[in-house]
């Protein structure tokens, strides 16, 4: 069991990193530890627990901006925004269920460091697109800031985007500023039943090409649809399309979308309540979360939407697999049967053929230590990546090896 440091202030964090630098020690950065099982296992001497840096510093709904200490619990922020009918439009996934952990436990710093997002990615982007500015301590033990607290800013490099999705390998976030947005008043989901994967991908592309502002487009094949938690017999696959906004607009668009889907099958409608719980379940990949499948590896594969079905078929032809499509086919969640390489060879081959990138989200630590969890990088990009890491953390103090060996 490694020692854990629990800084209370940003200055403490700076001291901790400097101390680690002086000792040649490596730190594992954690908030509340909800995503510790993602990535390559920590190769660290000490844990730096940032959950003590908690609290919202500023929230100005009319300026669409919120600043908080990085360890602030996400559910606290979401509750605060809800009071003012706002939300985090990027709809961050809760990895708790998928990783057999508790639900609703993450911190805002963790959300940003992992660049989380959800089904609304196709309409509203990911955490990176809402990350306005931060203060952090680099692996050099220096406090620095970037960005600002206004929603439009091009002053200097947009380092917030680089930090988003860097999994704590470049800097320890201490304060973050994010964009908040009005929460859509209501929503509805148009459902087409019984489509095969390829038809569903075509149907979702057709939906995305309408002016209906689809904010979620997912396909649940027959094997997984019963586990999405709708509580009714579905008896086949479900292709689901979400529209959100003010009531008159949602009414209009769900009708227009149903009409546009006629060519693919008969469309049904889910009302607001069912729609909300459905998209929460899709966001959190609930069909792969059940306890009895928790030993099976899960891959998160991003590809061009039109190639989603082909990519999944290639994998399914070589390994026993279940699939869930989100982002109109552009996000392919795959659950495979356990194997030594968690199916990496098969997955990487399919991604190589179809384009895109794949990340192993769920697998035993020993497996994650033995293979590439993140997509392997082309040589030029790999050395550029190492040079970027070098610029922020030359001695490899922060989460070394979490993303790739040597980074």
């Amino acid at each position: 069991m490694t020692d854990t440091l629990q800084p209370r202030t940003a200055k403490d964090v700076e001291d901790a990193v400097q101390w680690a630098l002086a000792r040649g020690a490596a730190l594992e950065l954690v908030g509340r530890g909800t995503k510790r099982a993602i990535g390559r296992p920590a190769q660290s001497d000490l844990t730096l627990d940032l959950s003590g840096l908690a609290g919202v510093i500023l929230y100005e709904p009319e300026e669409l901006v919120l600043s908080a200490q990085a360890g602030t619990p996400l559910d606290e922020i979401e509750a605060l925004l809800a009071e003012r009918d706002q939300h985090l439009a990027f709809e961050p996934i809760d990895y708790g269920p998928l990783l057999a952990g508790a639900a609703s436990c993450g911190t805002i710093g963790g959300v940003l460091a992992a660049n989380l997002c959800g089904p609304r990615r196709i309409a509203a982007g990911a955490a990176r697109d809402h990350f306005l500015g931060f203060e952090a301590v680099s692996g050099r033990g220096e406090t620095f800031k970037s960005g600002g607290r206004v929603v439009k800013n091009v002053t200097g490099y947009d380092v917030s985007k680089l930090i988003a999705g860097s999994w704590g390998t470049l800097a320890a976030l201490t304060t973050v500023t994010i964009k908040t947005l009005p929460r859509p008043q209501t929503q509805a989901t148009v459902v087409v039943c019984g489509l095969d994967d390829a038809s569903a991908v075509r149907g979702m592309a057709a939906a995305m090409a309408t002016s209906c502002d689809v904010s979620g487009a997912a396909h649940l094949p027959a094997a997984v649809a019963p586990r999405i938690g709708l509580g009714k017999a579905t008896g086949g696959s479900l292709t689901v399309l979400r529209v959100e906004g003010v009531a008159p607009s949602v009414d209009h668009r769900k009708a227009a979308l149903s009409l546009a889907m006629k060519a693919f099958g008969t469309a049904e409608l889910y009302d607001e309540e069912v729609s909300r719980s459905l998209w929460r379940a899709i966001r959190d990949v609930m069909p792969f979360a059940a306890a009895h499948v928790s030993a099976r590896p899960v891959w998160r594969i991003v590809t061009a939407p039109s190639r989603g079905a082909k990519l999944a078929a290639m994998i399914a032809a070589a390994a026993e697999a279940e699939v869930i499509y989100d982002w109109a086919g552009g996000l392919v969640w795959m659950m495979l049967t356990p194997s030594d390489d968690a199916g990496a060879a098969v997955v990487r081959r399919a991604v190589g053929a179809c384009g895109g990138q794949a990340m192993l989200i769920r697998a035993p630590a020993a497996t994650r230590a033995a293979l590439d969890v993140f997509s392997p990088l082309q040589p030029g990009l790999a050395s550029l990546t190492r040079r970027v890491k070098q610029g922020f953390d030359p001695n490899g103090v922060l989460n070394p090896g979490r993303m790739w060996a040597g980074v």
Partner: protein
Amino acid sequence: MVVAMPEPDLAVLARRDRIVKALSAIVPGEGVIASEAAMRPYETDGLTAYRALPMVVVLPSTTDQVSRILAYCHGEGIKVVPRGAGTSLSGGALPLTDGVLLGMAKFNRIREIDYDNRVVVAEPGVTNLAVTQAVEHKGFYYAPDPSSQIACTIGGNVAENSGGVHCLKYGMTSNNVLGCEMVLMTGEVVRLGGKHIEAGGYDLLGIINGSEGLLGVVTEVTVRILRKPEMARAALIGFETSEDAGECVSKIIGAGIVPGGMEMMDKPAIHAVEEFVHAGYPLDVEALLIVELDGPQAEVDHLVGRVEAIAQDCRAVSCRVSATEQERLLFWAGRKAAFPAVGRISPDYFCMDGTIPRAKLPLVLSRMRELSERYRLRVANVFHAGDGNLHPLILYDANKGDELERAEAFGADILRLCVEVGGVLTGEHGVGVEKRDLMPAMFSEADLAQQQRLKCAFDDKGLLNPGKVFPTLHRCAELGRMHVHAGKVAFPDIPRF
């Protein structure tokens, strides 16, 4: 020229003939421009107050040529300034007298339109508007729409992370770019992202957007396109005070409405525009708002009604809602012509670009009026009100005494004021040379050093567009040095378990 640029490298200048010859071997024919007269059009960009003749202009047309040019310049220690259409308002493409000006205008083809994935793959010299024009017959468009969209290029948009009037709802360039091919200063070609929505690994695409040509030369861009909204209507709302207009903006957003566009103009801007365009703007108001709602008719009608009610609440003295598409375009014609309209009433103007927390608008406007009196220069304001991005236009005459110097000092004071009230130096035009020396008003030395270390990862010799963005140039070796206080750092106070 008032702004100091890096000292020209005399050794490089002495080798000019050899350099021109070497570049001509890479880009044969008319791709290398070395005569003074022919280089003249490249001496400035949209920030015409600053000019410099480059050592030589090169116009490559393939990625391979760009790669070989950069590899050659890297080997020879020659500086390179990339240029798109030269519309930068911050001097991003200002040449260096000892540098190669790398013009990307010949990269002007759209390589692929992929409706299934809703993306366009374009060469960087394609204009912003040309992307929309290529797909609008199918009902699609490219969302970011900077005012210069007829002329400015996609590559330049990436470099500057350009915005436009619709970016509150639809995002800036970086929110709409999915991939790019880029050549590093060493000549190495790298690909970031593609048609998939998330590139994976470090978000290098996120920092290329807005890197102002300091990190790499983009040779291909993949952008996402959107289906055009069914319709749009605009409301033209007049107020007796800017406070009332500002309150109206806050209340619209507070009510959960994110308009497609929300623009504000102050009285001098309204008058300049109305005389020029005759858009029917009311002349007896202090502030004018254009609020555009887009979407299906049911949504637009519903939201227009709510916006009208909010405007009433905020003491609007006039409110006209466009009844036809023609009328909506007329409302916009005024706003879109604001810069040339001001150009008509003044020989020269500087367009500033700070962003402020919107609530500070009345304070900033009143302080700006004081500054206007102190510097004895007029100022007109247009404002992307939804996101707090302010464009004060400072009117001056470069041929009159010290007006240029006064205008520069006035502009700098405005930007310092933006930072002082919690805002930033630039919302969408970039730092370039214009705001370079103001960077310390917003960033500490440590902040700037960390950004420059990022630059070092891409360009270790600092040859790509030096003299832009950062007020002081540091060698990468110096920036990389670590000061570890081995053994001296005690660890007494932090709780541990």
